[in-house]
Each structure stands twice: as structure tokens, then as C-alpha cells.
């Protein structure tokens, strides 16, 4: 026999009915899957009718043990692993890792390499946010934005592939610069893997197209009354709660905190670039969407400026052929499309790290789920989860 709900009991005494009503809560298993298949997540929800009383996310289905794997792999091999953590923005994952190793080895990448890193990171950001722009309206029942967003995303991925050779897993960063040559051998040693001819112009064209598709999305989604009804005022995360739960990235900025590691940390040459940090006001699902849309525009702006300014010069700093990292520890964080991504590397000297701790944005962003989903309706559950834009590979590592 369950405890009588005091609200129900109140009415019962009014009506002077002496039956004891049973209103058992139902436990609803959602998953193990993500409604938009960003990975595998299980939600154990205690529901009372349409109302969600409590939610417990069960994670770990995508656990691949990257922190442990890194302990038995050389630094060069680990770079190939880390771009699989958040697979929709592979390039951005490599940045904090290589810079942490560079910090330990006390080397700095040449300026041209840093600009290439910055351009490709912003492209990864655009491609990641375009996935959000397509999957989020899809979760709310609009299929058309997906077609528009994926068309431009394909263009971006092709540009990334043209430079790095990989669409999703670029594996392009090296300690002290970017990937040197196809084969390090004597015959092609001079063939440094610089940007392929025409890349800068293609990037400019692609950015124009991206800005156009942003307007299209604005037109199709932002002003749509169904979309607004589903998102405005839903899943509000106030500023203090966002800080309390350690949200980062667009989710934090949608709550009105203008914190962006691109401006706060100086690991890539963002200083000379003119761009804004879009922030929201209400911290609801609509604001999280708007902030991401604005971030695509800002990322396009960054790329437009960076391709004009990219200096010529070497792509690699002088680094020994066999990487031996001196003992020490370093934590470097960077702005991933999902938020703060950081690597804490402990080296005891030698070719393999002693310990790598990965701070991934999605894990912290997901931690707010039990709080934010309390007392929400089941249809809003999907809208709220989608608006947080987590990738389960990033959660479980």
C-alpha cells in the first residue's frame, strides 16, 4: 500500500470518502538508447501519469576506457584515441591534449600551425552545432532542417577531410604542430602536409554558405510557433544552478554566463580575432538553441578572419623523433563545441603517460538531468535532453 498523496487526501476528506486510493508510481525505463541516437543512455524515470517525478541517468554503455588505454599507448597513439571521445567534433578534442603535451615538453607550435588548428577547430564546432541544428528540431518533429543542416555539414566535413584525410577522426595534430608528412621517408620528406591548394578560398565559400543556412534555419525553425511552444520556458536552468552543476559551453552561456575558454585561455590565437560570445537570458531550451545558432555564425566569422590572416611559415616545431615527455603534470582545457574539455596528464618520463584524466563537457552537462527533469512532462523530457546536446561517447569515454 502506497502512502496517500497529501493533495489527494485533502480532497478525500472534503468528499468524506473512506476508500483508500492507490496511485502507484510507474518506473519507466527509457533506453538504453538516446532518443536521437547520439549514443547509448538509459534513463530510469519514476513517472506519475505524464509527470516525471525523478530521473536517474544510467551511463557507462559507451565506456571504452580511454583513460586506461592512454596509459599503455604512446602520446602519438593517444592522439588517435582522443578524437574518438566526442566523435562529432573530433578535431576539437585533439587540441587540449596536444597542447598539454606541448606544455610538458615546453615546445610551442609555429604560428601557421596554430592558425590551422584554430580554423579546423571552428569547422569542427560548426559541424557539431549543425548536427544539433538538425537533430534537435527532428526530436521535436521537424525533419526539414536536417536536410539543410546536413548539406552544409557535408561541405565542412569535406574541407576537413581535404586537409587531414579524415572526416570524423582527423588525427592531424602532432606535438609541436600539425601532421608533418604523409610518410616520414626520404622521398617525401619535403612534402609537408600543408593546406591543399584552394583550401582558403573553399573555406571562404563554405562560410558564406554556412551563414546562408543559418538564415534558412532562422527562418524555418526559430520563428516556428510549434518549435517555440515546445521550447520557450521549458527546462529552465537558472544561472546559479548552471554554475552549481558545472555546466559549460553553450548550455552555460544560455543561462547568461558569458564564459568562453576561447577568450579565457590563450592556447590558440583567438586574441587577434574579433568575435562575440553569444549568451542567453532565460536559460531555457529555446535559449540553448539560439546560443548555438549564434555560435555557428561567430565560428564562421572567426574562420573568415583567420583565412585572411593565416601567416606562412613552418608547421612543426623542433621535436625529437621519439617523443619522451619529461616528468611533470599539466592540465589544459579548451572550448569544445560541447563545453570545457580538459586533459590532465601526469608524466613520469618516457614514451607513455602515467595517467590521463579526461574532463569532458558532456559528462558534466548531463549531471544536471535529474534536477532539470524533475516534475517535467514526458514530452518535455525529450525536448530538454536534446537541448543539452550531449554525446554519449563524451560522457562515458
Amino acid at each position, binding site marked *: 500500500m502506497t502512502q496517500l498523496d497529501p493533495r489527494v487526501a485533502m480532497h478525500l476528506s472534503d468528499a468524506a470518502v473512506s476508500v483508500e486510493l492507490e496511485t502507484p508510481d510507474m518506473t519507466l525505463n527509457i533506453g538504453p538508447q538516446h532518443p536521437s541516437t547520439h549514443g547509448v543512455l538509459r534513463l530510469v524515470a519514476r513517472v506519475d501519469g505524464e509527470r516525471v517525478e525523478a530521473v536517474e541517468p544510467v551511463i557507462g554503455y559507451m565506456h571504452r576506457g580511454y583513460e586506461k588505454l592512454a596509459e599503455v*599507448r*604512446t602520446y*602519438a*597513439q593517444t592522439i*588517435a*584515441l582522443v578524437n574518438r571521445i566526442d566523435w562529432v567534433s573530433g578535431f576539437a578534442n585533439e587540441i587540449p591534449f596536444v597542447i598539454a603535451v606541448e606544455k610538458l615538453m615546453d615546445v610551442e607550435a609555429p604560428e601557421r600551425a596554430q592558425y590551422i588548428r584554430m580554423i579546423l577547430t571552428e569547422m569542427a564546432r560548426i559541424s557539431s552545432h549543425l548536427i544539433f541544428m538538425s537533430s534537435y528540431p527532428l526530436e521535436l518533429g521537424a525533419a*526539414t532542417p536536417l536536410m539543410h543542416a546536413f*548539406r552544409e555539414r*557535408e561541405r565542412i566535413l*569535406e574541407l576537413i*577531410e*581535404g*586537409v*587531414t*584525410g*579524415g572526416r570524423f*577522426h582527423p*588525427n592531424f595534430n602532432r606535438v609541436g604542430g600539425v*601532421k*608533418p*608528412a*604523409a*610518410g*616520414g*621517408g*626520404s*622521398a*617525401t620528406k619535403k*612534402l*609537408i*602536409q*600543408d*593546406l*591543399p*591548394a*584552394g*583550401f*582558403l578560398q573553399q573555406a571562404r565559400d563554405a562560410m558564406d554558405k554556412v551563414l546562408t543556412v543559418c538564415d*534558412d534555419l532562422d*527562418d*524555418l525553425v526559430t*520563428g*516556428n*510557433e*510549434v*518549435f*517555440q511552444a515546445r521550447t*520557450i*520556458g521549458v527546462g*529552465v536552468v537558472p544561472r546559479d544552478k548552471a554554475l552549481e552543476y558545472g555546466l559549460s559551453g553553450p548550455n552555460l552561456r544560455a543561462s547568461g554566463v558569458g564564459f568562453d575558454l576561447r577568450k579565457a585561455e590563450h592556447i590558440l590565437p583567438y586574441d587577434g580575432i574579433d568575435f562575440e560570445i553569444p549568451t542567453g*537570458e*532565460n536559460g*531555457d531550451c*529555446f535559449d540553448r538553441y539560439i546560443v548555438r545558432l549564434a555560435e555557428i555564425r561567430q565560428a564562421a566569422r572567426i574562420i573568415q578572419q583567420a583565412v585572411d590572416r593565416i601567416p*606562412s611559415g613552418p608547421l612543426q616545431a623542433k621535436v625529437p623523433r621519439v617523443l619522451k615527455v619529461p616528468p611533470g603534470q599539466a592540465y589544459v582545457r579548451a572550448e569544445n563545441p560541447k563545453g570545457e574539455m580538459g586533459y590532465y596528464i601526469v608524466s613520469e618520463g618516457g614514451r607513455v603517460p602515467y595517467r590521463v584524466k579526461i574532463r569532458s563537457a558532456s559528462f558534466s552537462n548531463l549531471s544536471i538531468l535529474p534536477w532539470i527533469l524533475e516534475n517535467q512532462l514526458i514530452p518535455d523530457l525529450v525536448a530538454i535532453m536534446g537541448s543539452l546536446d550531449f554525446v554519449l561517447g563524451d560522457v562515458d569515454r
Partner: protein
Amino acid sequence: MANARPNTFPFRGLAKGLKVTLKTLFKRPVTVHYPLEKEVPVPRARGVIALDTEACTVCMLCARECPDWCIYIEGHKEMMPPAKEGGRARARATLDRFDIDYALCMYCGICVEVCPFDALFWSPDHEYSEYGIDGMLHDMDRLTDWLATVPEPPPLEA
């Protein structure tokens, strides 16, 4: 919660959606019908690894650096006749086996990068799916065949 944003006119979203439908109805699709039409991958695309057996010296660097340990190499020393009359016979390492298990490969390209003798190349060719997992193990002959598909490296941005 009262929203500060202006409410839109009813059915405006629907009209806008239909406008997009009309606009795209007469456009050429951006997609291609894959098996009938094919897109040309970029020259740097990491599709499959080609092997130049002549250049390989069985140094095992690629097999050692591979994060998945998916390269299997066996070799032996062969005595070559001396280059000059009366010289010493030279030993030359010869490949017996060079297999890459593409079922394990994560296409990181470390093997191509560490090869000191330019024996490994990336080819953008990617159409080698198989019905069984054992077919993904490419032996020396198959890897050598890929050599024909290796493109010229693209010209570089000045």
C-alpha cells in the same frame, strides 16, 4: 512563463515551410545515387593502405607503432650476391608476410607516417567491404595491388 519574444502570426511557420518545399522542389539534389554515381574522394582521404614491397625493409616500425597492433609482418634474411666481383655477400631482409587486418585498423595513419622508407601509402579507395570478417585481412599481394590507386599528392596552398 511569459515569453519576451514576439509571438508569431498563426500558421506563419507552416507557410514558410511550404515556401521552402516549393523552392527546393525545382532544385537539383545535392546527393548522389551511390552505386550508380560515385563521388571522387579527396586525394588525402584515408581509405586503404597500399604497400610497396620493394621499399619495405622489414624494420617492423609500423607494426610496433600501430595502436591496434593490426599489422602482421614476418621476414627473413636473404643473401644477395656481392655487388662487385670478390666482394662480400650482402644480407637483405625480405618480406614473407605483410598483412593488415582492416577489421581492427582504426585508420589513424600512424604506420604510414612512421615508415622511414616510404613503403606505405594512403589510397582513397574504400570499396572493399566483405561478407565475412576474415576477408578484411589483406595480404601482401592485395596490399600491393592498392598501390595503383594511390593518387598524386595534391598541390599545396602557397
